[in-house]
């Protein structure tokens, strides 16, 4: 059985437990599942955040995540992975993104989940706009996110 790869771009929220169960249901070969969920914070430094609005590039978002999912599948012995990224208006405390990786052993699942998140941050075509104190500003990209993604290309 080939390992299932699920990629969804959606405005609706997701159920983390349900997504994990969907990857492992009926299987006894999986020994490790790692899940990362990114959640909207209610503040950035001292600034209170009322909400985030996520814009995305339909078509390319799926294609770009698929390219990195395929790379993760070829770099680590995974038994499945799921990536869900939301778009639209998201309030503090709500989910933004989910990565779930399944493998026989934990190292592959941990590494692949971190690899996928680092690339989601820097190369998946999504843009956050923060609403705070009556303003709405585009979030600026961070150099440490680029550095985090770049370390996966080192040999």
């Amino acid at each position, binding site marked *: 059985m080939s390992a299932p790869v699920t990629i969804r771009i959606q405005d609706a929220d997701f159920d983390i437990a349900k997504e994990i169960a969907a990857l492992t249901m009926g299987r006894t070969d999986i020994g490790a599942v790692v899940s990362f969920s*990114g959640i909207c914070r209610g503040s950035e430094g001292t600034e209170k955040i009322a909400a985030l609005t*996520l*814009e*995305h*590039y339909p*078509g*390319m978002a799926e*294609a*770009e995540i698929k390219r990195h999912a395929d790379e993760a599948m070829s770099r680590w012995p995974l038994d499945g992975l799921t990536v869900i*990224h939301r778009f639209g208006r998201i309030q503090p405390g709500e989910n*933004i*993104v989910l990565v779930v990786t399944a493998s026989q052993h934990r190292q592959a699942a941990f590494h692949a989940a971190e690899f996928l*998140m680092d690339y*989601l*941050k*820097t*190369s*998946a*075509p*999504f*843009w*956050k*706009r923060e609403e705070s104190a009556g303003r709405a500003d*585009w*979030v*600026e*990209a961070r150099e440490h*996110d680029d550095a985090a993604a770049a370390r996966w290309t080192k040999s």
Partner: protein
Amino acid sequence: MKLKYFAWVRERIGKAEETIEPPPNVRTVADLMAWLTARDDAYAHAFETPKVIRAAIDHTHVKADAVIAGAREIAFFPPMTGG
């Protein structure tokens, strides 16, 4: 070819997409940005710092020296901030 714009690039240009036919001397993504910049102030504002602008041809990230011949859809956008 179709052009698409996202986030503050879209806001500065004032539209999400358009169809254009650049002249043959516009060979690369950088040439296309320069050609658009010369059209009016909105493009000039969007592309005022070309090195921060990211581009994709047919849903794949490309560098500014990428050749645009044969492209169906070219997108311009700021550095990504998802995840």
